[in-house]
C-alpha cells in the first residue's frame, strides 16, 4: 500500500549508496530493555504514591518494590550497553543540560535512591515517615524517568527519531502506563488482596489506548522519516507491538474475574511494550542506514515532489 514510496526518486544521488550517518551502536535487547524497565519503574513510583494515599496497601508495597527493582534492572542494561561498563559512574562526572543522557543519568540516580528508600521502608516497617517522603519524591522523578528517553532518542541526527520525537515520547508515556499496569496485573494474579489492584487494571487499559494511539501516530509521521515505521523491520515490530498491547488491554477487562486473565494480560502488555521499543530502535537504524532518508529530510521540497511522482507512477 505504501510500498511505492520506497522507490528512490530518479534525481536522488549518494556516494555509492553508502550511509551518510553512522547506524546507532545501541543494540537489542539492551536499549529496549533499559527503556522498558525505566518507564515501568517511573510509572510504578506514581502508582505506589497514589496507592499509599488511597489506602491500597498491597498495591503500594508491590509498586514500590517493583519500582526499585526496575531501576536496578534498567541500570544494569544501561551499563552493559556501554563500551566501557566499568566507567559507568563517569555518567555522574558532570551535569550537562545539553545532554539528555546526562540529565537522564541524574534522574535515574535520584529516582533509584528514592524508590529504594520507599521500598525499604515499606518492607521493613522502619522510618515510615521518611519512606512516605521518599515515595512522594519518587512520584516526581518517576514521570521524568519515563518520558525523558523521548528526548534522548529525539536529540540525535537519526531522521526517524528526530522527526518523530513527539510520537516516540507519547509512546513511552503510554508504555509506562502499560508496563506499570502489567506489573500490577502480574501481582494481582497471585495476591490474596485482589481488590487492591483495581487501579492497576484500569491503568493498564488506559495505557493500552495511549500506547496504541501513539504507535498509530508513528505510522502517520510524514515521509521520509515515517516510512520506517510502516515498512521493514520497524514497521513489523510496531504492528506486533500493537497486536500484543491491544490484546493485553482486552484481557485486562477480565482481570477482576480471572487470575489467569490477569497473568495473560500482564504478559501481553509487557511483550507489547518491549516490542514497541524494539520497533523504535529498528526504525531508527533503518533510517540511518539509507542515505535517502537524510538527503530527503534535508531537501523537503524534493521529497514532496518525489512522493507526488510516486503517486503517478
Amino acid at each position: 500500500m505504501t510500498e511505492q514510496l520506497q522507490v528512490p526518486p530518479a534525481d536522488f544521488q549518494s556516494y555509492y549508496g553508502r550511509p551518510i550517518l553512522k547506524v546507532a551502536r545501541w543494540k537489542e535487547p539492551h536499549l529496549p530493555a533499559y527503556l522498558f524497565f525505566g518507564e515501568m519503574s517511573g510509572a510504578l513510583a506514581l502508582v505506589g504514591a497514589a496507592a499509599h494515599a488511597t489506602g491500597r496497601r498491597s498495591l503500594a508495597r508491590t509498586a514500590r518494590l517493583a519500582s526499585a527493582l526496575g531501576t536496578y534492572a534498567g541500570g544494569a542494561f544501561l551499563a552493559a550497553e556501554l563500551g566501557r561498563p566499568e566507567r559507568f559512574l563517569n555518567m555522574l562526572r558532570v551535569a550537562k543540560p545539553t545532554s539528555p543522557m546526562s540529565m537522564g543519568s541524574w534522574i535515574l540516580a535520584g529516582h533509584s535512591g528514592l524508590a529504594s528508600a520507599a521500598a525499604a521502608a515499606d518492607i521493613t516497617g522502619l522510618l515510615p515517615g521518611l519512606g512516605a517522603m521518599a515515595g512522594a519524591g519518587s512520584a516526581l522523578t518517576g514521570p521524568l524517568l519515563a518520558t525523558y528517553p523521548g528526548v534522548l532518542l529525539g536529540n540525535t541526527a537519526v531522521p526517524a527519531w528526530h522527526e518523530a520525537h513527539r510520537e516516540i515520547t507519547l509512546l513511552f508515556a503510554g508504555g509506562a502506563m502499560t508496563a506499570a499496569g502489567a506489573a500490577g496485573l502480574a501481582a494481582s494474579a497471585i495476591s490474596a488482596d485482589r481488590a487492591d489492584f483495581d487501579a492497576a487494571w484500569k491503568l493498564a487499559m488506559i495505557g493500552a489506548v495511549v500506547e496504541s494511539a501513539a504507535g498509530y501516530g508513528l505510522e502517520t509521521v510524514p515521509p521520509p522519516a515515517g516510512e520506517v515505521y510502516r515498512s521493514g523491520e520497524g514497521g513489523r515490530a510496531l504492528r506486533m507491538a500493537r497486536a500484543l498491547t491491544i490484546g493485553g488491554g482486552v484481557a485486562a477487562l477480565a482481570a477482576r474475574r480471572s487470575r489467569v486473565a490477569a497473568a495473560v494480560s500482564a504478559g501481553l502488555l509487557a511483550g507489547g511494550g518491549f516490542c514497541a521499543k524494539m520497533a523504535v530502535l529498528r526504525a531508527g537504524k533503518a533510517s540511518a542506514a539509507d542515505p535517502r532518508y537524510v538527503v530527503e529530510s534535508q531537501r523537503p521540497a524534493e521529497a514532496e515532489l518525489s512522493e507526488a511522482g510516486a503517486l503517478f507512477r
Partner: protein
Amino acid sequence: MTGNRLSGPLADVSADAGYTDHPRRVGFFTDTSVCIGCKACEVACKEWNALPDPDGDVLTLTGMSYDNTGELGSDSWRHVAFIEQPGHPDGDELIHAVADLNGSGDGLGTTRWLMASDVCKHCTHAACLDVCPTGALTRTEFGTVIVQPDVCNGCAYCVSACPFGVIDRREDDGRAWKCTMCYDRLRGGLEPACAKACPTDSIQFGPLDELRAIANYRLEELHASGETRARLYLDDPEDGIGGGGAFFLLLDEPEVYGLPPDPVVTSKDLPRMWKWAGAAAGLLVAGVAVAFSGRRP
C-alpha cells in the same frame, strides 16, 4: 536567535567554552578542485595518530573506484572519496580513451573524476559535544573538538548525534574516536599531519577567518573560469551547525560526496523536545490519576 547558544552564529567558540585567553580558532579548508586522490592525508593521519587497521591487516577492496577506505570512522580520520561520473561534459578525454582501449566502445563519452578528502567538521555547534554525558568530548582552546580517551565510557550517544557520521566507537576498545585536528601538533606549533602531507594544498590549515577569505577568492576564480557548479560547503556561520571548523569547496551536490546537504545540529530543537517530554509526563500523571479515581471496590 532563540536566546540560547544551541545554534546560530557564534563569534568565539573558545570563549563560549570558557577559555579567557586563547589562540585564534583554526580549521581546515579542503579545496577538492585540486585534490589528486593521492591519499597522503590518510596515510599521514594514520601514521601520526597511530590508528589501527579497521580490517585487521586484511586488504579489503570495496569496488568503489579507488576508495578502499569507504568512510570516516573510529580508525579513519581522513577519507578520500573517489566519484566517477561517466558522460560528464567536464570529463577528461584521456579517461575516455582508456575506457575505449578495453574494447567496450559503448560511447561512455568523457568521465569526470571527483576526489575529495573528508574529515571531522569540528562544528561551531557540535552535536557530539552537546550530547556527551561524561564530558569526554570537549572544546579545545583552538576551537576544535576532541575526545578525551581517559574519560569516554563508550555510551555511543555521539555516534548517533553526529549529522555527518564522523565519530564512531571502536568495538574492541569500547571508546569513541575521531579526528583531533592533531591537537598534540597544534600544541607544539605544528600544522596537522594531513595538511602537512598534502602535495597540492587541497588541504589548507590556518586561522578559520583567513581560510574563509581564501576560499571565497578561490570560488570566484573557479566561477570566472566556468566551473559554475563549484560551491563552498559549511563555510557559512549562519548554517545549521553555525559553520564548520573544517569546510570544503565542492564541485557537485554534497550528497554526491556522501555529505548531508543541509545538516542541522540536533540540539537546536532541544528546548522544544524537553517541553514535549514535560507534557508527556503530565499525561502519565493524569493517566494514573484517572486510574485511581473512584473508590476501592
